[in-house]
C-alpha cells in the first residue's frame, strides 16, 4: 500500500515539475508548482512528518505561491512566444555535468543505517511537532535566531527595492 501511494505521489511530483519548467504561460507554471507542493506534502505525511506537511501547505502554497500570483497579476505578463534562452544548448551541457556528478555521488554513496533516538514509535509517542520543537529551541536556538534575522533583512530589502524613488528609476517614456 505504501509503495502504491509513494509511486502515485512521485509520478505526480515529477510530471508537475516538468510542467512547471515547460509550460509557456506563467500562471500555468505557478499552478503546476502548486500541485507539486501538495504532493510533496503527501510525501512528508508518508515519512511521518505531519507538521512539516502542514507547514509546506501553509507556507509554500499559502504564502510563497500567492506572492508569485500577486506579482504575476501586477505585471500582467503574456505567454511567451519563444520561451527558451538562446544559449540553451550550453545550459544542457551544464546540466549534463551536474547530472553526471550527482549520479556518480549516488552510486558511491552508502546510505548509513545508523539509528538515532527518534524512531517512528518514539516520534509518534511524543508527537512530531513537540519533537521538532524540543530540538529547535534547545540545540538549534542560535540558527533559529539567525533565521529570524534573515527574514527581517529580506523584509527590509523587499520594501527598499520596491519603493518608488529609493533606487534610480530610469523609465524610458
Amino acid at each position, binding site marked *: 500500500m*505504501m509503495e502504491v501511494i*509513494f509511486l502515485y505521489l512521485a509520478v505526480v*511530483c515529477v510530471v508537475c*515539475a516538468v510542467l512547471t*519548467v515547460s509550460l509557456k504561460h*506563467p500562471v500555468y*507554471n505557478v499552478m503546476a*508548482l502548486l500541485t*507539486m507542493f501538495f504532493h*510533496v506534502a503527501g510525501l512528508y505525511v508518508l*515519512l511521518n512528518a505531519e*507538521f*512539516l506537511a502542514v507547514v*509546506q501547505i501553509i*507556507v*509554500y502554497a499559502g504564502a*510563497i505561491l500567492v*506572492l*508569485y500570483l500577486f*506579482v*504575476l497579476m501586477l*505585471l500582467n*505578463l503574456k505567454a511567451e512566444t*519563444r*520561451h*527558451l*534562452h*538562446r544559449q540553451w544548448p*550550453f*545550459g*544542457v551541457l*551544464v*546540466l549534463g555535468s*551536474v547530472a553526471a556528478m550527482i*549520479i556518480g555521488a549516488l552510486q558511491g554513496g552508502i*546510505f*548509513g543505517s545508523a*539509528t*538515532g*533516538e*527518534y524512531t*517512528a514509535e*518514539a*516520534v509518534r509517542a511524543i508527537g*512530531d511537532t513537540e*519533537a*521538532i520543537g524540543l*530540538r*529547535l529551541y534547545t540545540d*538549534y536556538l542560535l540558527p533559529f535566531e539567525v533565521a529570524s534575522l*534573515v527574514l527581517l533583512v*529580506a523584509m527590509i*530589502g*523587499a*520594501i527598499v*527595492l*520596491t519603493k518608488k524613488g529609493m533606487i534610480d*528609476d*530610469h*523609465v524610458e517614456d
Partner: protein
Amino acid sequence: MVPLSAYVILSAIIFFIGVVGVVTRRSIIVILLSIELMLNAVNINFVAFSHYLESITGQVFVFFTLTVAAAEVAVGLALLIAIYRNRQTVNVEELDVMKW
C-alpha cells in the same frame, strides 16, 4: 516499505528538472519557480533521511531551508518588480548589461 534510495532518486530527478528550468528558460519568474523546485528536492531529501536515520535534525533543517526560500522569494520578486519598472521586461536575455 519504500526504500530510502527511492526518495533520493526522486529528489535527484526533481533537482535536475529545476536545473533545466534555471539554465534554459528566459523568464525570471520561471527561473525563480525552478529554484523553488530545487529547494523542495533538497527538503524531500532532508525529511527522507530524517525518517530513515531516525533523527529529527533533518526536519529541523527543513525549517531553515523554508526560511531561506521565503527570504529569497521576497527579495527576488522585489528585484523583479524593480527590473520590470525600469525595463518593461522580465526576459533575462535582454538584461545583459551591468549598468544602463
